[in-house]
């Protein structure tokens, strides 16, 4: 269980996290979703005491992280795949971490086995791929068999098999009653892995709800209609309780109605239609509209329709 209250972090004049309050419950995977620079990593770093909050507080399993006598048994954190000395081997890194908590060597070898690191365990970390670094970070997080896991962008750099593995392990750990808090900038990733999602943008919580609720709310349907008699059609539709937006002369976007209903209405009034397209907004689009005003680094409009790929592009 992670509880944040009015958690704030300012760097000079810039506010990275702006008074966020949320609770991450045990027994489920909670996604932490937001665009680049939204404050996800800063929030996670404050949870484990690496960054000091400017205001507010955050506790893990009832206490501030630093007040725990066995912190690695309370929280396993993957905050940065490369929070490892590049000159040390993976196994030696884990042995040094384990030594602080008297964790036996057998456990070190167990997490190496579990994360598939055995072939590279005695290699120095400097030569690791991003994916291998990520696996080592997860191995370190699991070392103390923690009740709470914090994973910052855990699937970054992983191959498809690795992505699947992270999803499964996150779900499995939550099913054991642990708290799993996993950040991502990809709505689709969170939708596949998480039960609950907290959306953050520009340091503020934008949504805090079960994933299904966000997904349902997201899949609003709209109908795109092109007609030379657009004005006439718009009046007709509005009279029939649909919401109409005029996108450009002759082009309407209709909400609260179906393509069939629009077509029938137009036919009954002898209105010519040049286009009638049902548009299902995707999860990514819903996320984009949710965070539209809070994206830190807007990418230039390369393609008018490329919203989702813009988002991913800006992260790459």
């Amino acid at each position, binding site marked *: 269980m992670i509880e944040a209250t009015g958690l704030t972090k300012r760097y000079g004049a810039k506010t990275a996290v702006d008074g966020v309050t949320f609770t991450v419950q045990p027994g489920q995977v909670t996604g932490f979703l937001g665009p680049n620079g939204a404050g996800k990593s800063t929030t996670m*770093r404050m949870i*484990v*005491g*690496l*960054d*000091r909050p400017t205001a507010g507080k955050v506790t893990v399993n009832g206490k501030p*992280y*630093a007040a*725990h*006598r*066995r*912190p*690695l*048994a309370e*929280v396993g*954190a993957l*905050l*940065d795949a*490369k*929070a*490892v*000395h*590049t*000159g*040390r*081997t993976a196994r*030696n*890194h884990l*042995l*040094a*971490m384990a*030594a*602080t*908590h*008297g*964790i*036996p060597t057998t*456990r070190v070898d*167990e997490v190496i*086995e*579990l*994360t*598939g690191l055995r072939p590279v365990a005695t290699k120095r970390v400097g030569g690791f791929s991003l994916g291998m670094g990520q696996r080592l970070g997860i191995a*370190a997080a*699991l070392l*103390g*068999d923690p009740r709470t896991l914090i994973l910052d962008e855990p699937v970054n750099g992983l191959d498809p098999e690795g992505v699947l*593995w992270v999803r*499964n*392990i996150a779900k*499995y*750990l939550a*099913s*054991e009653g642990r708290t799993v808090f996993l950040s991502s900038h990809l709505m689709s990733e969170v939708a596949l892995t998480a039960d609950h999602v907290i959306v953050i943008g520009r340091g503020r919580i934008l949504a805090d709800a079960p994933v299904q609720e966000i997904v349902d709310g997201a899949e609003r349907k709209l109908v795109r209609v092109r007609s030379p008699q657009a004005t006439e059609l718009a009046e007709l539709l509005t009279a029939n309780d649909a919401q109409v937006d005029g996108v450009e002369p002759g082009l309407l976007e209709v909400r609260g109605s179906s393509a069939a209903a629009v077509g029938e209405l137009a036919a009954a009034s002898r209105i010519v239609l040049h286009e009638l397209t049902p548009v299902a907004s995707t999860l990514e689009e819903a996320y984009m509209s949710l965070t539209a005003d809070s994206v830190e680094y807007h990418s230039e409009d390369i393609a008018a329709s490329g919203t989702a790929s813009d988002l991913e592009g800006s992260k790459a």
Partner: protein
Amino acid sequence: MSATATAPAGGTTSGPSTGHTQVRNVTFARVLRSEWIKLWTLRSTWWTLASTVVVMIGFALLLALVVQLAGDAMEGASPEDQAAMGGVLGGTTVVAAGYEMAALVVAVLGALMITGEYSTGMIRSTFAAVPGRLPAFFGKALVLVLVTAVLTAVSLALSWLVTYPILNANDATVDFGDGDQVRSLFGTVLYVSLVALFALGLGTLLRHTAGAIFTVVAIFLVIPTIFQIATFAAAQLEWVGTVNKLLPSVAGAQITPNAGQFTDVLDPWVGIAVLGGYTALVLIGAAARLKAQDA
């Protein structure tokens, strides 16, 4: 059984948790053990330690050679002249000849212990495991001082061993019955250990390998050299002499066999206490920054 069925495939039957993982409280002894492992699992440690031994023995041999050459030249000279020669290049001076260079090499090790963690991001793993932070810092300091002290003592012993035949032939061996000579060798160990700690503190303050090493070299090599010239060139300026004797390297050196370069100096024990004071200040500042600032 159902748990086993849903466990992610990982090649073991245990899953992420075996339910019986032994995890104990973080204690200073465990943190110390962790820092010990960290030190010895880096190649840079082995490089710097080997360099220290080589530098110490190398300088000792070089100076022993000077003693030999001087001895050859002095053959037939009066006993008074020979005694004067032995006073400048005594056995302890030869054995500890490389201590200043060794101190700089060990300073690199001290700085790297912490700057290496900041530059790679390892510091975040360290502080996640030891959120109190200070135990990790003091653990590093203790490991560093232990290793440095033993290393310097061993280097001195090896230097004594390899130069013994030459020094013995020239009647310039270390006299272990002489309290001052023994103190100066012990003082060499103290000096090198303090410089290593000083560098660890600077590394923690600056969080930057090159910056920390540059600063150590400036403080222990460049500035003293400038003042060494100044004490001769501007001997009439009183403050030059005062600052000179209070420089970390000059104050600390009075306890080593290298004392006697200047006339206006501190007492050996006062001098090493002054160096200890500087080191304590740097370490306190370092601990304060480490504790207060974001990692």
